[in-house]
């Protein structure tokens, strides 16, 4: 199971800025707490120094005289100062000679320890912070003139400071957390502001890709994203304009294609029209002589009407084919369209000594198509079939209903000829514009046909064998209007051709 997550740009921006926010706020909080902590400790040290300096002033004279009663009093008074945990006075040997609770008799009996020796021997204030016990130890030698008299040592309770530090830490963390959350909200807004237009651009690209050229991003901003959105909208506008121009060009080309087809039929059509006219002319020449013969008059009337109707029908078909059409999708019968085209081309087939057969399915459903466009497709494909036959041959036009993949239903128009066939190397190119193997061909017919069928959501399949003939399968979907047509290249010799 592939659980790979593809994070969005918005999520990436959010996460990156959130990490930055966390680091920035965290660093700020850490530095604030540390500086406050150091400040409080420094203040405590300064107070401790002031206290020990003050104590030194009062302890020097009694220490000089070794007045242990007074030293004891001083130590007791020092102990009574705020935050003072203990107070010791050492003599020049490092022995305790004054503290706040010891039995006086023990003063001089108490042996000097390493710390007291170090205090007496040092020349400066010694400060040591015991974080575990929460005590600040501060000591100082007592010197009078050049004589070291001893030392003093104070222990200051740091727990009130630590409590204050804890309160500051909690407050700082609370404020930092609030700033962090506010930062996250701001980041969310920033991420939205950055990616919102990009999302709209993405949506716009999709919509345009789907053919909705009316879509506009509509982001009014003066930054790069605003410029990009404006460029996008401008591009869409131009694309719409080009699309309009393209449609106009396509319309012109399609009309030219139809006229080209008509041009190819000119000889046959002239013959088709001339024959009835000759018959009518012959009857008209004989009319003065045989006007009194009722049988002649009846035959003339019948013949003239029949031929005129035939010519009128032919002209109507031609006009219908040649008329510039506007896109008009309606429910139509494919058999009727195919039949009309075959009728137009019937004379051409006869001229070419090609037998044309129709196998039209009687149970075809009506389909939503542009009738004139499908006529053009049928004309192009059937005319190509006729033209591909050198000498005598056969063109079979069939219609049928088939299901693709068992779900989608198509009406299929099959045009099979016994012509020369298409070389395999050319099959891929036959739907490309301006590709032709004919001397006087434009190379647009099949290209336009493919485009029309594709616009109807259908597709064309070609099967051909050189020397044996070619089969074109025009597949038009059976579905309601509004249902989107599938797009793609024409399929050649496709397995699921629907035959």
């Amino acid at each position, binding site marked *: 199971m592939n659980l790979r997550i593809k994070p969005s740009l918005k999520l990436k921006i959010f996460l990156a800025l959130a990490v930055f926010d966390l680091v920035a706020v965290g660093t700020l909080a850490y530095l604030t707490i540390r500086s406050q902590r150091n400040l409080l400790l420094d203040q405590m040290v300064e107070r401790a120094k002031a206290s020990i300096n003050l104590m030194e002033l009062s302890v*020097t*004279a009694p220490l000089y005289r070794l007045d242990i009663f007074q030293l004891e009093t001083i130590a007791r008074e020092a102990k009574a100062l705020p935050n003072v945990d203990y107070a010791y006075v050492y003599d020049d040997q490092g022995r305790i000679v004054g503290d706040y609770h010891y039995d006086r008799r023990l003063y001089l009996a108490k042996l000097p320890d390493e710390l007291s020796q170090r205090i007496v021997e040092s020349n400066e204030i010694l400060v040591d912070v015991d974080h575990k016990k929460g005590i600040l130890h501060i000591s100082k030698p007592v010197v*009078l*003139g050049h*004589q070291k008299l001893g030392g003093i040592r104070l222990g200051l309770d740091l727990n009130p400071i630590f409590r204050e530090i804890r309160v500051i830490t909690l407050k700082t963390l609370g404020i930092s957390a609030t700033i962090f959350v506010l930062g996250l909200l701001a980041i969310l807004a920033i991420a939205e502001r950055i990616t919102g237009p990009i999302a709209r651009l993405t949506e716009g690209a999709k919509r345009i890709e789907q053919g909705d050229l009316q879509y506009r991003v509509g982001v009014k901003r003066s930054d790069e994203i605003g410029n990009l959105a404006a460029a996008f909208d401008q591009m869409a506008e131009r694309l719409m304009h080009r699309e309009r121009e393209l449609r106009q060009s396509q319309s012109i080309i399609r009309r030219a294609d139809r006229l080209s087809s008509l041009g190819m039929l000119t000889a046959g059509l002239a013959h088709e029209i001339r024959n009835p006219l000759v018959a009518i002319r012959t009857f008209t020449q004989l009319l003065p002589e045989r006007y009194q013969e009722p049988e002649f008059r009846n035959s003339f009337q019948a013949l003239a009407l029949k031929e005129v109707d035939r010519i009128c029908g032919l002209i109507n078909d031609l006009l219908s084919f040649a008329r510039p059409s506007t896109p008009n999708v309606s429910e139509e019968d494919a058999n009727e369209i195919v039949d009309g085209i075959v009728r137009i081309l019937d004379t051409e087939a006869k001229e070419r000594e090609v037998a044309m057969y129709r196998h039209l399915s009687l149970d075809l459903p009506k389909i939503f198509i542009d009738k004139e466009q499908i006529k053009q497709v049928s004309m192009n494909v059937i005319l190509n079939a006729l033209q591909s036959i050198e000498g005598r041959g056969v063109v079979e036009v069939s219609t049928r209903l088939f299901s693709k993949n068992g779900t989608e239903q198509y009406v299929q128009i099959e045009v099979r000829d016994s012509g020369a066939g298409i070389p395999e190397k050319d099959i891929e190119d036959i739907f490309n514009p301006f590709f032709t193997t004919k001397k006087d061909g434009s190379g647009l017919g099949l290209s336009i046909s493919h485009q029309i069928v594709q616009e109807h959501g259908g597709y064309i399949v070609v099967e051909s064998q050189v020397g044996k003939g070619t089969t074109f399968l025009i597949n038009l979907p059976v579905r309601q209007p509004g249902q989107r047509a599938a797009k793609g290249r024409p399929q050649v010799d496709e397995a699921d051709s629907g035959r």
Partner: protein
Amino acid sequence: MGAAVTFVVFCLFLYLPHFLGSSPLFAAEEKLIVFGRIQDDPVRAVRDRQEFVDYIAKKLARQGYSEGRILVVGKMRPLARALREGKVDFFHDSVVPTVVLSRWAGAIPIVRQWKYGEAEYDSVILAKKNSRIGGVADLKGKTIGFDEPHSTSAHILPRMLLVENELKLAPVTLPGRAKQDEVGFVHGADGNAIHMLVTDAVDAAATSTREFKELRPEIQDRLKIVGRTRSVPRLVISVRKDLDPKVVKALKEIMLNMDKDPDGKVALKKQQRTTKIDEIPPGSFQLLRDIEKFVFSHFGKQLDSW
């Protein structure tokens, strides 16, 4: 080869003093020159005099002294003992301790030390301007206030003046009165005698002339001087009796020349604005003897507590 040996010998010659100096056998004994001082507050005593003693010690380096120390004691007896035991080499004090320690420990006065810009000072006996006391003879039947018993200026010298004027002194308890043929006296604390006079607790008070001059004008205006003592040296510097005469000579020479040396001037000034140390005027030796005689005859055993 010869050059190398010469070089080694030369090097040994160069470093010989160093080797000898670092050897315990040849190392010069580092001596302390110790200054003695009688004062209740050892901190102030040391702070005011350390620079002076350091200067002396530095100048006595030729005599083998490397450092100056100050020994502060509360009374004269311990200082006398320290002088006898050689623990104090020299000291300074006013004339009374000088004569007492001279007798007890054989200390020898060698120079006079100025103080507050004065070589000598005297004391005065004051009375209210509106009183009938016009001189010391008028103090009969009156009460005089002194400061502490050991105060030279506010007790010993004025009392000596009264005795020299054949007045008989007797202690009284306030608000008691003296007998008609006697001068009653009481002791106060430092500066308290003037206060007793101003508040009419006593009829007269003794103090130094300098302190009288420093009184506020409105107080001064209410007082008059009814007696004045002889002038005595401000301070006298003495040495222990068994101090090496060479050292004594050097010490005396150093001190007499301190005011001519900028560093010496500074060191002197730090010590109660001393400007000078000079020879003891010949006349002062007789005065010292008079004071010694007076002190031992009048105070005897009391001196042990001073």
